[in-house]
């Protein structure tokens, strides 16, 4: 089933075009991004429930103009009937910034030269979200919680949730007329267990472009997360040190994203904040490593036709056989660096600035088998259940946290678990030590990515099992 463009955006396009025509009289570049994102979040826990609009919901616009020096943006979610008065309001806002610019040191930007393009993308949903009513969706989640709560007396809560979001966007300028609408959905299941005063949790999630099929997948997550949480009650703290490690696909995805992906966001190049600038066309990883990012690099929650600056999405090869080839960029960074924009200009919402951001960030699969990778380790850990991480593009430090480390001794999993596990170190060391890459591939899109400590956007990451060395704590 095809996803339709928001009727509100379709109806508003003419007004937006009129606004652009008015502003075009005074400014050499004018564009408008219109967004109408709608979705619902359903959650059932042992002690309650909720059914609310998704936190990603938004309806509004951001207008970008070249203000004769550099770029000014104005975000708004009301369009007054009196367009002429509204144009005056926008100019007034612009002039506040311009006054400050003219008095202070500033950077200049050239005027963007858009190529003429009219295009549209309307995603597909395998199972229509309307096939189940709100009641039936909530009942499905309630059944997951109720049927599993009695499976262990250690369980204090199961949280089952399902979220679906339909993104509608238009991008308009003198030369561009772009439309897109797609739906992503995700389901999560969290189990919380307690034994005396020791409390642990485990989670799993499923996400991607599509609809109700992801609610179905939540059902299968519950037994596994309960087992995982109970297992964690027996977990010990790891003895800090350097180990041979295998990253499960979700941890590989986290490494791709945090350890390297942020470091090739090219707005960081403009600010001289990325160490990777010095390594373009040089080795940064072992020959086994191939890494990509892009709206077209994979099909998941961040697969779109155009980004939030009206640049068409691409598939960027970042690392080829260990050599750093390309970064990912927003349009203004590309303009400054004289490179081709890669369609990675993303905004948290219409209210925020666009930055160079990741989309679907992946390590490509290899040819090794997981069992051979385990056999190749004398003493180490298999890391699973990625929790989160933090980037360090300037210094290539790593912080990636996994919930589970499964001990490997003499080529076998011993059954002993350590938790939580913090993987730290220096990015090139970690990537250069990758000596085996499995034939598997999994993609994860249930998370969100921040830049620094803000600007949250939907991203996906993943890859195969990777065998390397890392410092664990």
């Amino acid at each position, binding site marked *: 089933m095809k996803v339709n463009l928001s009727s509100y955006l379709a109806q*508003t396009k003419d007004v937006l075009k009129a606004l652009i025509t008015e502003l075009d009289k005074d400014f050499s570049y004018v564009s408008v991004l219109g967004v109408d994102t709608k979705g619902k979040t359903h959650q059932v826990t042992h*002690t*309650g*429930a*909720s*059914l*609310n609009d998704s936190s990603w*919901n*938004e309806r509004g616009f951001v207008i970008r103009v070249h203000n004769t020096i*550099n*770029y*000014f*943006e*104005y*975000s*708004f*979610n*009301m*369009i007054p009937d009196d367009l002429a008065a509204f144009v005056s309001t926008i100019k007034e806002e612009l002039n*506040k*910034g311009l006054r*400050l610019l003219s*008095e*202070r*040191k*500033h*950077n200049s930007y050239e005027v963007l030269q858009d190529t003429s393009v009219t295009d549209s993308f309307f995603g597909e949903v395998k199972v229509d979200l309307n096939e189940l009513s*709100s009641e039936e969706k*909530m009942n499905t989640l*309630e059944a997951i919680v109720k049927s599993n709560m009695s499976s262990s007396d250690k369980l*204090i*809560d199961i949280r089952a949730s399902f979220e679906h979001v339909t993104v509608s966007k238009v991008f308009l300028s003198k030369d561009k007329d772009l439309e897109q609408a797609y739906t992503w959905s995700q389901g999560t299941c969290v189990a919380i267990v*307690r034994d005396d*005063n020791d*409390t*642990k949790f485990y989670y799993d999630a499923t996400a991607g472009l599509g609809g109700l099929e992801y609610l179905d997948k939540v059902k299968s997550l519950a037994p596994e997360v309960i087992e995982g949480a109970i297992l964690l009650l027996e977990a010990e*703290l790891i003895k*800090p*040190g350097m180990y041979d490690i295998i990253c499960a696909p979700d941890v590989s995805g986290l490494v791709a994203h945090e350890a390297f992906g942020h470091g090739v966001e090219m707005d960081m190049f403009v*600010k*001289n*904040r990325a160490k990777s600038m010095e390594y373009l066309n040089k080795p940064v990883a072992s020959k086994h490593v191939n890494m990509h990012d892009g709206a077209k690099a994979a099909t998941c929650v961040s697969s779109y036709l155009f980004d939030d600056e009206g640049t068409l999405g691409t598939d960027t090869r970042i690392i080829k056989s260990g050599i750093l080839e390309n970064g990912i960029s927003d349009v*203004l960074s590309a303009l400054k660096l004289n490179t081709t924009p890669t369609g990675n200009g993303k905004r948290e919402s219409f*209210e925020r*600035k666009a930055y160079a951001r990741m989309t679907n960030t992946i390590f490509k699969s290899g040819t090794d088998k997981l069992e051979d990778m385990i056999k190749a380790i004398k003493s180490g850990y298999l890391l699973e259940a990625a929790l989160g*991480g*933090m980037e*360090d593009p300037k*210094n290539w*430090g*790593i912080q990636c*946290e996994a919930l589970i480390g499964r001990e490997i001794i003499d080529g076998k999993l011993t059954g002993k678990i350590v938790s*939580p596990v*913090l993987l*730290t170190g220096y990015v090139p060391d970690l990537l250069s030590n990758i000596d085996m890459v499995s034939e598997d591939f999994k993609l994860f899109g249930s998370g969100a990515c921040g830049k*620094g*400590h*803000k600007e949250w956007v939907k991203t996906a990451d993943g890859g195969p099992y990777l065998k390397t060395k890392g*410092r664990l*704590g």
Partner: protein
Amino acid sequence: MLKRIQTILDGASLDGWHIHSSELSSQELFFVQDAIDMTRSKNVHKVNVTVYKNFNTFKGSSTIKLEPTMTDEEIKSAVDEAAYAATFVKNDYYTLPKPSDKTIKTTNIDTMKWAPDFTGVIQKHDLNSSELFINNANVHILNSEGIDVTYHKDDVYVEAISSGKGINGEVESYKEIKCASFDNDSFDHTLTHVIQSSIDKADASKTPSLENINVILSGVAVERFFNYYVSRTSVKAIYQNISTYKIGDKINETKGDPVTITLHPTMEGSTESVPYDEDGVLLKTTKVIEDGVVKSFWGPSRFSYYLNESPVGIMRNIAVDAGKSTIEEMKKEPYIELVEFSDFAMDALTGHFGGEVRLGYYYDGQTTTPITTGAFTSQLSAVENDLLLSKEITQQNCFVGPTSLLLKNQKISGE
């Protein structure tokens, strides 16, 4: 728009409603080094509406976001759909908060005039890059029980990045600065500190692996450390059995300093100062833990009802009492002071905490050396009984408390 919404809500078949409206405006400046690279501004109106339906022994609710561009028909349709959805949300019955007799007035000031002031201080410093957001909000909260309160809120957010050069090459420091007013000296001092931090990191040695070492936590980690206790005294965590705290529980039987935590609706200079919480509950200062003993709970009125507690509301200004030791006394024995992590995490569920070390100082008994890299992780249960809090107090936006904490006999994963 609120009148339109209220009329539609009054005409719908509901057992209660709640409106949270925010009119937001901002002026934003983005700097590369000391040059303004982009300017932005916004004017946005956001309205969240929650509708309630009683059924069986439950009170269901559903929250929707209404847009100012919605027609009456669209709003009515969204409200009807939410009312229908609320009948499948099986939450135990509770009552909605009622209005207070007291009204608090807040002052509306022209924060946008601060843009040149903040810009002046930013451009004076040799930063790599920075971002400045000057935001203000007019908030209006109404509910079907008669709550009808308004307040004004200002906040400034600065992200400052500094690069320092030294034996480790070019190294950067990252700092988020939040404040509710312009204080030239304070802002200038903070930026100077960010720059010094990057210089120290650039010349720092690799963190050594150490066992049985005293760890002194300073900076953002201190606030995050105490957030564990704050989250554990929330009525929501207690109702959900995430926290087992009871009034009168001794939470840190201690050879060190007992913990005392007070929540405040307002705090000088804090961006989290509000007279009412999201439900419209009038907030008042509440001591949640005193001398290591749980004194009272805080949190959303719904969960207070479940626990048969008077609604205290949600407050984000946290004050922790000072301890008995000076930082100088803490530093008499060998220690590692950790002042900057890539992202210090405290798991409110398990009590595990730590992160990758970006900057610290190691005192081996003779000399003090700046250190970087490596990781520190630990668990609250292993440290809280000999926890020492510094006598010195520091404010970081909505947190005022000990400048440093001493955790005894810890392990450091270094190189």
